[in-house]
């Protein structure tokens, strides 16, 4: 087939600029890497592989700040997903990935294919996905029918894909803020379980071995999805639907079963396996060849195609879903084909591993690409980035701190419970199957989801957490808070934090202020990762989250997994028995900057987020966990948005109990302060003394659980006396009501 432009025309007309390849990069490729002008197909391959989405060329220097090893980590970043040892020869595999741009443009398919992509990353490692989580950040929904529809369709997309795959969605978070109005965030996380002996790699080695294509046919969907993800939004590209892929969860379910059968039952046939994710065939094949230090030749005429007359460029860059690339030992091609045929799937040999290090493509009988493998993967120019502290942060430091005026603390609590970010999310998560595979011990609506590992006493706790408001006001402290919040959710469930995955969602990194936000928030996260010994084992970076020049709040999402040693010691998040003593763990300060209270009362967020002593917080959290593991704790709930007041109400919802507390050491405003690292813990009366002793100054006993369904609080400067049923009704009805509101 004829190339759309000659190399000389490309040099002259510079179409690569539209594909987000810079002139400097193009010149470096022509002059230094190839010593000639790249043809049209090659230029397309470079532009995709050198995009931020595939190469992390801008974020790499920052990502190096993260710790990614400890004694449990079996596989860190760089493969499909990270792998952590959970003893007994078993491993947990997890990763999170953003699908922000596709979900903004086409919420249903964007969210659905986000789930599909992350699941393939998990089973390409040889693990069976056992749970999914999400982290969704939308614009305000009140009276905005377009945003309401985006919420509905995003949730439906996640549900339809995950439900059909038979993988329970067990936890997540959903927040609302005007900064996401033009660019919503959809981050999906998947957790898998495997035997350590089955760990796979995305590698291709052995001269003459087959490169096999399995799964769905290739169409024209999602071409340049990777570069689409690496550029800003504007009204102009709101119509870029062709860059969004279409998902088929039924096909993926078959692909999952076929791949796992091949991996676990015929390990000797398989050399390597990788998902065809961003940048489709080119990224999977080039990365596998680079990993194996091999050469590779592919014949694109053999690629199963859904549409006629696709060009080499289109075949290579298509992001059609539900496809995998395998490297199979020579002679076993037919065996592999038979396994996939049982599931009604295609498995086709499209190329071979070759001697040398060249990446060669044939199409229509002609050679359309002949370049060194590593020029696509390893030679990408890292970009230096300018950075500058945003003016708003300097300004905020010079301003007096905002102090809330609370007139009626009970009324303030009622209103906070109806804020969309705090309100009950069951109308959303009930659309997800949270129980399939019958291992879900704790489902959505708690601090963390908990899955038991069948046949053992062990369990896995998991959570996703990100709060862009704190990071916006203070990237470094906000980054620490994100990690502490995740660890608090894991530990409140009775689990020990193992490791994290992340999605780093930011605006355009060419803006020095945004790069500064990225750099400093990662610094904060990395410090907290080191303190909690939770290395970053996988993740992704999503930059360019802007619409018409308006960036989102910097929103790093932390996905954490923890190990429950004895599933009988999973701690519920709600009160259990009347007469249990109530403790607040962690000190409460005047932390209102970026709080839900500030947002509700002033309509905006401002101020300085106070720093805190990471080591001290971690130290008493460990003592709290030890108490849980000895069975002394009846319930524990992490304090987050809305502070102690909201957490106390949540502790009582879905029970028929009440609380009678003396909070004379706190003001009514402090009831809603969002100081990180705090818990509300209930302890059986006969254990209260030893609990109090272990926690020392870090816990204070404030009262007890009662049989009346009332929340009764006596504070230094006021009282709260609220009927819990009424509070619960407001909390439950708020979100469904706001999702229907019209002007």
């Amino acid at each position, binding site marked *: 087939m004829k190339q759309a432009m000659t190399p000389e025309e490309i040099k002259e007309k510079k179409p690569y600029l539209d594909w987000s390849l810079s002139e400097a990069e193009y010149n470096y490729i022509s002059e230094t890497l190839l010593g000639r002008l790249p043809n049209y197909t090659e230029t397309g391959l470079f532009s995709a592989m050198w995009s931020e989405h595939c190469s992390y060329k801008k974020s790499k220097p920052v990502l190096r700040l993260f710790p990614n090893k400890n004694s449990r980590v079996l596989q860190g970043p760089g493969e499909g997903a990270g792998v952590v040892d959970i003893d007994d020869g078993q491993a947990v595999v997890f990763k999170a990935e953003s699908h922000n741009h596709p979900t903004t443009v086409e919420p249903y398919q964007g969210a659905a294919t986000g789930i599909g992509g992350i699941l393939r990353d998990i089973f390409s490692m040889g693990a069976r996905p056992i749970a999914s989580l999400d982290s969704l950040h939308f614009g305000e929904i009140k009276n905005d029918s377009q945003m309401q529809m985006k919420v509905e369709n995003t949730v439906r997309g996640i549900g339809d894909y995950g439900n*059909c795959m038979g993988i329970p969605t067990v936890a997540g978070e959903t927040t609302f803020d005007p900064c996401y109005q033009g660019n919503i965030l959809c981050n999906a996380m998947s957790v898998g379980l495997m035997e350590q002996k089955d760990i796979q790699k995305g590698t291709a080695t052995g001269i003459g071995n087959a490169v096999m294509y399995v799964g769905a046919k290739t169409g024209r969907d999602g071409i340049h999805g990777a570069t689409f993800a690496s550029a800003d939004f504007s009204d102009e590209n709101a119509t870029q639907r062709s860059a969004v892929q279409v998902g088929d969860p*039924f*096909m993926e*379910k078959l692909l999952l079963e076929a791949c796992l059968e091949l991996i676990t039952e015929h390990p000797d046939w398989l050399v390597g396996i990788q998902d065809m994710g961003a940048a489709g065939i080119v990224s999977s094949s080039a990365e596998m060849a680079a990993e194996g230090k091999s050469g590779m030749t592919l014949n694109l005429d053999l690629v199963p195609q859904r549409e006629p007359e696709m060009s080499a460029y289109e075949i290579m860059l298509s992001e059609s879903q539900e496809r995998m690339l395998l490297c199979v030992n020579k002679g076993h091609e037919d065996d592999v084909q038979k396994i996939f045929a049982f599931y*009604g799937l295609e498995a086709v040999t499209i190329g071979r591993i070759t001697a040398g290090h060249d990446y060669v493509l044939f199409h229509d009988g002609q050679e359309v690409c002949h370049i060194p493998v590593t020029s696509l993967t390893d030679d990408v120019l890292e970009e230096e980035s300018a950075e500058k502290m945003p003016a708003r942060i300097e300004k905020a430091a010079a301003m007096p701190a905002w102090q809330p005026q609370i007139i009626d603390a009970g009324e303030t609590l009622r209103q906070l419970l109806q804020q969309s970010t705090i309100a009950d999310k069951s109308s959303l998560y009930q659309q997800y199957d949270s*129980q*399939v*595979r*019958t291992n879900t011990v704790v489902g959505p609506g708690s601090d963390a989801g908990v899955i038991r590992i069948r046949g053992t006493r062990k369990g896995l706790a998991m959570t996703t957490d990100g709060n862009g408001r704190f990071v916006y006001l203070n990237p470094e402290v906000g980054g620490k808070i994100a990690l502490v919040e995740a660890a608090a959710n894991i530990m409140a469930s009775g689990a020990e934090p193992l490791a994290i995955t992340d999605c780093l969602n930011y605006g355009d990194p060419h803006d020095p202020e945004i790069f500064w936000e990225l750099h400093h928030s990662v610094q904060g996260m990395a410090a907290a990762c080191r303190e909690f010994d939770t290395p970053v084992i996988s993740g992704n970076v999503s930059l360019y989250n802007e619409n018409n020049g308006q960036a989102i709040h910097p929103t790093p999402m932390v996905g954490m997994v923890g190990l429950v040693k004895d599933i009988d010691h999973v701690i519920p998040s709600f009160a259990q028995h009347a007469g249990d003593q109530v403790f607040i763990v962690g000190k409460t300060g005047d932390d209102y900057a970026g709080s839900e209270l500030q947002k509700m009362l002033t309509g905006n967020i401002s101020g300085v987020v106070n720093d805190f002593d990471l080591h001290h917080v971690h130290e008493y959290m460990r003592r709290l966990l030890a108490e849980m593991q000895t069975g002394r704790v009846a319930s524990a709930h992490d304090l987050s948005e809305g502070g102690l007041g909201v957490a106390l109400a949540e502790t009582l919802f879905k029970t028929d109990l009440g609380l009678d507390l003396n909070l004379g050491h706190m003001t009514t405003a402090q009831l809603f302060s969002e100081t990180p690292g705090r818990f509300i813990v209930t302890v059986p009366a006969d254990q209260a003394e030893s609990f109090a002793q272990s926690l020392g100054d870090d816990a204070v006993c404030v009262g007890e659980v009662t049989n009346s369904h009332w929340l009764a609080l006596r504070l230094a400067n006021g009282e709260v006396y609220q009927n819990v049923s009424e509070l619960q009704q407001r909390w439950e009805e708020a979100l469904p009501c706001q999702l229907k509101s019209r002007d």
Partner: protein
Amino acid sequence: MRIAVVVFPGSNCDIDLYEALHSVCQADVEYVSHHEKSLAGFDAVMLPGGFSYGDYLRAGAIARFTNIMPAIIKMANEGKPVFGTCNGFQILTEAGLLPGALKRNDCQRFVCKTIPLEVVNNETVFTRQYQKHERIALPIAHADGSYYADQKTLDQLEENHQVVFRYAEENPNGSLHNIAGIVNERGNVLGMMPHPERAVEALLGSSDGLRLFKSLLANGTAKVEA
């Protein structure tokens, strides 16, 4: 009693049924692929939940044409126990082993939660260990669970005591007569939208579904007489 759990392409609660029978009830249970043509040697067959053939065309509409289906129909006709939950129920109605059809939920959404049911008929091989009118809690997880049949069929179902489970408080999907599960006239084929196999361990929230499997297993290999 040897029980077959049929695996269709897209079944995903097959493991839930299998483990409920194997790990919890210590029953003799085996997966059987939809490719198979025979269920010889099995005393009962169970059709799991999930999304057979991706629910494409209509939930259960394609699965009824698989190789295994004639063998399932044969077992039903022989009076052996045949059980379908969720997608399994949908397949049983599509195959004509149970009357009526399951439509899209009233709310147009997938719904996953645990809800109260009433045991209406405790005289089937599947429900003998329940009390009549007993309230139990079972999980539901479906988008197409709104039971529909014409008036004559509904009258017959009521008259013959073929309604086995009803939604007790809230009807989550718009099912007529609040129907959650029915048997055929002979009483050996049970289809239900709720998932008893997800409620067999207190650790996971409810064990109210356990007695359904225990009822069947206690019954041994006995057939239901026509």
